[in-house]
């Protein structure tokens, strides 16, 4: 965009440079003022006192170490990440099947897959989780996984479809012409390339899935948020803000780590020679838009994006 801006504007003259400098100073002051106001608001409520000790030294016979172990091990690993690790492989398999089904020669199969995609992209993950608990009488972890799997399968299948659509047409034609069946062409020529170019979008979808596990909190599944709540109920109301901010920090760092991985892969992908480029030498164009779209869609509460 900075390139575009350079093109859109003339090179700033002395007047514009002065104006930009003034604006910079003014808005730096505004942002600093905002931060100062927040700190002051917190200060005047005694928030900056020793209540943060709960994260360092602990309280009520528990050490700070115990608190963090609860948050990171019981909450993050045994709650949130466990659901993610169970759901992701299931999503991968189901999405693969759904993607193949959407290109199937039988119209009925194709339409069923099309219907599944649109229906389950449009139903809240939370509703699916409640359905698991109340209607199917599942216990909590399977219900959480059910909600995550059904929704993300539909989204990942869409991502893969966009990836296949972004490939040059010659790839499929070449596969068929060397005598591969349509299914083999799909599985051995198109899908591997589609997965490669869509890898950043697929990883972004993991962020969405990870955030959506927090919907489990609402149906009573014990994950990071539930552990946080138990902790601040135990330590008393003064500890509420520190603990909530601590768990927010955990979510944000884990998600940023995953997102960073996606950016890194995107850079590698650009240089990869394993993906066919369109004949005009251009980049495969669809992935970026599709990736953003998918991330956006995931936005749900995670997805309910919660």
């Amino acid at each position: 965009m900075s390139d575009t801006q350079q093109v859109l504007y003339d090179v700033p003259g002395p007047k514009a440079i002065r104006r930009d400098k003034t604006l910079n100073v003014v808005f730096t002051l505004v942002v600093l003022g905002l931060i100062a106001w927040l700190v002051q608001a917190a200060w005047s409520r005694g928030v900056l006192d020793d209540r943060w000790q709960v994260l360092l030294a602990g309280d009520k016979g528990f050490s700070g170490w115990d608190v963090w172990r609860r948050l990171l091990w019981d909450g993050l690993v045994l709650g949130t990440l466990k659901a993610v690790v169970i759901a992701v492989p299931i999503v991968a398999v189901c999405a693969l099947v759904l993607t193949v089904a959407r290109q199937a020669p039988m119209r009925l199969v194709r339409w069923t897959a099309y219907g599944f995609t649109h229906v389950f992209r449009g139903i809240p993950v939370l509703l699916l989780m409640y359905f698991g608990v109340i209607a199917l009488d599942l216990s909590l972890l399977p219900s959480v996984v059910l909600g995550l799997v059904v929704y993300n399968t539909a989204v990942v299948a869409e991502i893969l479809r966009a990836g296949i659509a972004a490939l040059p047409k010659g790839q499929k034609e070449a596969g068929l012409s060397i005598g591969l069946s349509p299914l083999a062409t799909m599985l051995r020529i198109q899908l591997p390339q589609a997965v490669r170019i869509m890898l950043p979008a697929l990883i972004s979808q993991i962020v969405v899935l990870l955030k959506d596990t927090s919907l489990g909190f609402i149906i009573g599944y014990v994950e990071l948020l539930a552990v946080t709540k138990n902790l601040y109920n135990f330590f008393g109301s003064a500890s509420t803000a520190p603990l909530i901010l601590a768990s927010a920090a955990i979510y944000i760092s884990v998600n940023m780590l995953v997102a960073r991985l996606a950016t890194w892969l995107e850079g590698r992908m650009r240089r990869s020679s394993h993906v066919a480029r369109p004949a005009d030498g251009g980049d495969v164009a669809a992935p970026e838009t599709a990736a953003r779209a998918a991330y956006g869609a995931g936005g749900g509460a995670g997805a309910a994006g919660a």
Partner: protein
Amino acid sequence: MGALIDNADLVLQGFGATLWVSLASGVLAFVWGVTLAAFRVSPVGPLRTFASGYVNVVRNTPLTLLFVFLVAAAPSLLGLKVPLGMPMAILALTLYTATFVCEAIRSGINSVGVGQAEAARSVGLTFIQTLTQVVLPQAFRSVLPPMINVYIAHIKNSSVAAAFAVTDLVAVANRLSYGNPADVVGIFAGVGLCYLVITVPLSVTAERLESRVAVAR
């Protein structure tokens, strides 16, 4: 399904609540999201820093956590007491969805090739003309499908409000299914259908548009 028809007024009320929360926070999120996107491409450094910091923090926070923060931490931390129910749901969804709106717009502007602007400038169009005649129309077309997807997610995310004292469709499904254990599947199917009435037209539109959007790159 019988239980749904017997309680049609409750279902309608839930449908209204879902629609109202989505609409109100959707409009606000659009305004705030466009503002953030403008901040992110502005020539003023501090605004860029603020907007990218905000987007990165809020986008990586689960919506449920945002609600919990508003309920439990905001009053003691900032003295910010948002009434539980509608106002809190609208605030949380606005803050959350705005980050996705911002990113959709920003990537749309970025997707218009630099050559387009260069060409426009070199045939003598002014800054305003370049932006309104060449860049923005193309950006708009490539923003539309991702934006629709953002709003589909937004409508579904409004269901988190069910856990925070808003009687929306999910809350209604919940309440009815405890009263009518025999009819649970029908109730959930019906409520799911209510969501689909809103979301499927949107997702089909997005898919149609996607295939028609061909931006010069």
